[in-house]
């Protein structure tokens, strides 16, 4: 009996082993914007733990035009998949919908992007979900409702201020989402728009902030908009004397500029999620055009405790337990 059983088990094992042995080695090119981040580590760790993969890591070092060289190389090397970091590199590699030039842009190699705040606004796809193009990827933006929920758990507020740049799509998207959620969260929304264009003057930001502070909101929301993120230190400095905390959509302003808190995507997790999508494509389980563009579903709550102490606004213990606390 025992011999029969072990025989059966052995056969099962052999069958499983057989399928493993047939797998080939894949070539994946990674085109990065400015060096390797935890997002790439997450991507590579996920993929190499599941498939035999050779990674060709290429860095444009902030010069998006250089991406074209790497695209050429990818074609020569006949890579199986291209990974792109960030909105500009991704646009450079695949082109915006409706402006695709097959001579320049990649149309025949599957592309998985990562850390693109707003793939829809950037013109990579008409909506979240499957694109129908040779493109899929992960947005690191956290759903607005989750951000607001985290904010309300931190501190119940009735009025939320938002500063935004009317000429930036990411800003407009955030405000539109906030407007859609005020009813659900019983919030009064106070908006201050900056209208001078993509490079606002310090004076204009200061003016908008003064108007916001005058309305005494419980929090001020800082959208994922690079034109504002660049001025995050000024925004935080203006709000601090009034005792108004900033909730930020991205991690940078919390870590570097003293925004109080934010619910943000962990780069390594976003990388692993992108890796999962790449795995589906390489295994042939799903074609790239059918794999949806998605955001993560698990996020990190980041709290700048130096700011918390300065403002005297302390996170409740249940958040302290789970949050990443920063002390600068």
């Amino acid at each position, binding site marked *: 009996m025992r011999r029969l059983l072990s025989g059966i088990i052995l056969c*099962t094992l052999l069958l499983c082993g057989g399928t493993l042995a047939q797998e080939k080695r894949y070539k994946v090119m990674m085109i990065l914007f400015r060096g390797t981040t935890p997002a790439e580590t997450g991507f590579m760790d996920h993929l190499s733990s599941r498939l035999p993969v050779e990674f060709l890591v290429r860095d444009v070092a902030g010069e998006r035009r250089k991406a074209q060289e790497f695209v050429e190389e990818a074609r020569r090397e006949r890579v199986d998949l291209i990974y792109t970091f960030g909105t500009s590199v991704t646009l450079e590699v695949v082109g915006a919908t409706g402006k695709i030039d097959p001579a320049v842009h990649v149309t025949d190699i599957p592309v998985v992007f990562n850390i693109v705040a707003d793939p829809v606004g950037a013109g990579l796809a008409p909506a979240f979900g499957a694109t129908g193009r040779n493109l899929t990827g992960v947005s690191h933006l956290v759903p607005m409702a989750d951000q607001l929920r985290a904010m309300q758990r931190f501190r119940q507020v009735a009025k939320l201020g938002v500063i935004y740049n009317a000429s930036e799509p990411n800003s407009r998207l955030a405000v539109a989402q906030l407007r859609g959620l005020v009813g659900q969260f019983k919030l009064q929304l106070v908006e201050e728009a900056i209208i001078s264009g993509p490079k606002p003057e310090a004076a204009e930001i200061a003016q908008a902030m003064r108007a916001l502070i005058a309305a005494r909101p419980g929090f001020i929301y800082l959208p994922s908009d690079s034109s504002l993120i660049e001025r995050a230190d000024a925004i935080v400095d203006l709000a601090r004397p009034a005792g108004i905390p900033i909730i930020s959509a991205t991690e940078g302003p919390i870590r570097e500029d003293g925004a109080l808190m934010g619910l943000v995507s962990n780069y390594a997790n976003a990388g692993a999620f992108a890796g999962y999508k790449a795995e*589906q494509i390489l295994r042939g389980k799903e074609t790239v055009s059918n794999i949806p563009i998605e955001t993560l579903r698990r996020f990190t709550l980041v709290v700048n*405790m130096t700011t918390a102490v300065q403002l005297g606004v302390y996170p*409740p*213990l249940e958040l*302290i*337990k789970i949050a990443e606390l920063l*002390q600068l």
Partner: protein
Amino acid sequence: MKDLQRRLVVLVSGLLLLAAVFVSYRAGEHFESSLTQRRLGVETEIGRSVAVVVEKALAFGVPFDQLADTERFLEAVKFDNPGVDYIIITTLDGRLRYSTDLSQISNAAGLRGALAAWNGRERTAHIGKYFNTATALNGKERQLGWLHLGERANIIEQLLRDIVFDILTVVVVAMLVTFELMRLLFAATFKTPMLAINEFFTRIANGDFRRTLARDLFGGIGRLNRSINATVAELNTRARGRFADGAQMPPGFSFDLAGERGTVRAIAVENIRWSFFLLIFAESLSLSFFPIFVAQFYDPAFGLPLHVVIGIPITVFMLAWALTMPFAGTWCDRVGYRLAFSVGAAMTTIGLVLTAYSTSLADLLLWRSITAVGYGIVYVTTQAYITVFVSTEEGTQGQAMFLASFFTGSLSGAAIGGILVDRLGFSTTFLLSAGLSATAALYVLRALGNEIGRTVARKSLLLADFKALLRHRHFAIVTFLSAIPAKVALAGFLYYSVPLYLKGLGYSQSITGRVMMAYGLAIILIGPMVARLADRARTRRWRFIMLGGYAAALAMMVPLLVENMKGAVIAVIGLGVAHAIGVSPQMTLINDRCGETIREVGQATAVGIFRLVERIGTITGPILLGAMIALSGFMNAFAVLALITFATTTLFALLLWWSDRATGPVDIA
């Protein structure tokens, strides 16, 4: 003989209970010392986990007197640790700073006083009715306060109350298994040899000396066989001697002159019953955790929601089982019960071993199908064996015995399986199942004779029979409005949802097993009683089915009204009671109302078709519930299922009431 059996049952259960009480008592004594130590460890651990969070806040500069939302945090910790009665944070000088709600605490003022006066040297102390554990709360440079955690001091009593259920479970299952074993032993050592001796002597009384009694390995009454055989052999030798001398044989006597005598063997239904019980027990071990086992093979890449995927293996199992049954019947008639049962049990064994080593959903489905086919063969073989070898007068009793074995095995398996899997894990439990199932196969190989079916000629299933029955209004009403919904509830609610629901509430597998056991217990305890009542009710029998339907609908609504465990337990018991009331009269009602059609297609075929069609419910149940849970959560799924049951029952009652009013109640002679 019945009386002897009854007295034996009383004796054995008495002994068993005494033993269980004694063992539990001794175990309880042991508790005091070991459990106090363990609880102490647990409390210190909980205290530490709270202190870590508070200290994290302090380390990052939150002032000790400005910790935010602390009450809510402490209440959450208390909720997660049901043993904890209070959590209090005091300053160094013992003033209460933060605490859980103290209104339920006996003598809260005394507690405050005691904490204020507490010197901080003893980390654990009895304060009033509570056992208090203190943990230091350290700020950046120095200690800032204390965290006190209280648990009722009579914790042993509390734990004993919890463990009583465990003990009861084991006692109930032990009793059921013992009764099954006792029946087997009783049959093997007493009933079978007695029947054989009886037949032997009846033949001798008629002058037939040509038989011998089988060698008896169990050593009961059968020990007499050797001397009886020897005596008869001696008589035969002498007769042969006389015959060789040319003497005439006396008329009316026949002797074994060739020296080869046939063996008298008695057939005992208990032999197959025990193996059947063992096999059902083996297969049911996984009942309480199977959906959770399946969940680990889930991959979002399937493109289906988790809850639907979990339902698939149960559905496939039921489908394979249902499809096997019609073929298994004819096959077992051809090859004999011994071979059919052994092959079936062997397939189940192989299926279970492979299940233990499943690596993906695809192989799991394949292995479960193999198991199901084996299970189906065993099920049909046993049913046929009992039908054939139990005398006609005891026919109903035979079927009752079959069902009793089925439910006893099933509920014992579910309860024990839950306890086992908590300790051994999935794979080992499946291997254990396989071992038991192999034992059943081997036992049948040894104990059963090579009887080939003396079955009443079995018709093969004809499409025309299906049509004839389904076209009969009453058959269709009972099948589609009562039988199928009942099976959907059984497979979808009990087998599929209950394990997942309880797991979601954070309960262990052994508790799940125990809850599921309640269903079988309700059926076993209430079923026979209801059957008797329903037999007496005659023309009003359909009201039992209606009552059962409404009771089932109500039972499945209970989790919405009563939260947590309590709701689940009431629902499962309620469903058991509902099915005990409503399910067994279904076949009787069909017999009453569709007599003519049934005579046309044959009783056995009609039952077969009914059982086959009602399995639509078993097959669709898990997938249906899975889809509903994936769409809208447990509560809504339960509500929808309850509403469906309510609707079909109402329709069932209205249709029967209307048809009775139109034609007048059917008169049954």
